[in-house]
């Protein structure tokens, strides 16, 4: 293999600056999408679990639509199609004056996609506890709505922390699709460095290491959340 190594490329300017800026954009996109995903996911998941036919059906439609269309396609729909189909004034603002359009669009697209997956986890979590706990809660005189609000949802949410961790990791990885609409996140910057210096191995290795680190931190964070929520019940598995 004919290759000259030069790890110092990563520490020279402007490349170091590119990497840092890229990592920053990745973190911003990941954090923004995750917050949106959690908000949307819990709401939709709750609506899906409630025993009211219309809300449950509407929530199901949301989940199936947003989870079966590839996230990149969704991103293109938000970036290229959405501004054209809304009233002209809003469309023009989006295309002209909206701040950080690449980042915002990426956050919206990934957030809604991940939100549908979070909704599924919420629904699955409620389903597993509903069988035993709903009759018990109703038997104490709670109305169905109270039973869901006070008993089922809080307990279900504690049980789905582990699957949610894997959804968080997926969301972080998804942030890379922003590069197709010009978001200069970490993957894009590492590719940029490869283009400029031909030292692709070093730059991609660096990006890989950063993604691994972000993943480890995210997993650790969710682990702490798990411990705080479930206290002594969160034993070693």
């Amino acid at each position: 293999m004919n290759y000259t190594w030069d790890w110092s490329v990563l520490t020279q300017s402007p490349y170091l600056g590119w990497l840092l800026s890229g990592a920053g954009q990745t973190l911003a996109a990941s954090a923004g999408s995750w917050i949106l995903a959690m908000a949307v996911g819990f709401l939709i998941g709750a609506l899906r679990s409630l025993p009211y036919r219309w809300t449950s059906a509407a929530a199901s439609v949301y989940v199936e639509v947003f989870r079966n269309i590839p996230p990149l396609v969704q991103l293109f729909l938000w970036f290229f199609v959405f501004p054209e189909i809304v009233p002209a004034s809003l469309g023009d603002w989006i295309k002209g004056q909206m701040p950080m359009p690449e980042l915002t669009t990426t956050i919206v697209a990934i957030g809604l996609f991940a939100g549908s997956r979070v909704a599924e986890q919420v629904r699955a979590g409620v389903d597993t506890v509903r069988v035993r706990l709903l009759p018990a809660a109703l038997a104490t005189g709670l109305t169905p709505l109270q039973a869901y609000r006070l008993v089922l949802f809080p307990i279900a949410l504690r049980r789905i922390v582990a699957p949610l961790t894997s959804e968080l990791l997926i969301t972080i990885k998804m942030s890379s699709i922003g590069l197709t609409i010009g978001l200069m996140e970490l993957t894009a910057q590492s590719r940029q460095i490869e283009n400029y210096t031909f030292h692709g191995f070093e730059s991609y290795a660096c990006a890989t290491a950063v993604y691994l680190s972000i993943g480890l931190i995210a997993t650790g964070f969710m682990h702490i959340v798990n411990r705080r929520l479930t206290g002594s019940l969160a034993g070693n598995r």
Partner: protein
Amino acid sequence: MDWSVIWKYRELLAHGMVVSAMLVGAGMIGGMIVGALLALARLSRFRTLAFVVGGYVTVIRSVPLILVLFWFYFMLPLITGQPLGAMTSALTTFVLFEAAFYCEIFRAGILAVPQGQSLAAAATGLGNWQTLRLVVLPQAVAAMVPLLLNQAIILFQDTSLVYVVALRDFLTAANVVVGLNERPIEVYTFVAVVYLAICYGVSLLVGRSKKAALR
């Protein structure tokens, strides 16, 4: 709105879909074969091998697919000493990428078979390989089918990412059409509906196979 543009470019779009299908096919078949080998390595008694394979699987699963596509697009020509097209590097990427996920599915399926089954088989004198082949694997496979189908859906969605190496799959072909026509609304909506229909259809199969596995 002018929906006829889709009909006008139907061949281009169809070719793109064929490329997507090829990527899914190779990713599934190649991925399952390599994934099975990786799973055996991880479950084997050879600790170093299991550790190395485990490391590979962990890294691949923690990193965006786009980055892995760039990795292989860059690395393969260097390793083989020849220039390789986007198709070859994309195929290689998908096989090795999916292999990591299939490895975990196979491992989870095998580990999910209750330990008592292996003990009972061993108690009647069956060897390790016999126990795996006759008792554990048949039970593991039933549980794995819904997970494998689910992974197929994810793979199909992931093929759209070859856009970044300019490989003309279904989505990239659609982009070309938009470039020629400036009709993003019709084309992208069409693309979304097609993906939605296919993925939703397969997800219904997943539901059915889950019920079958519980029987």
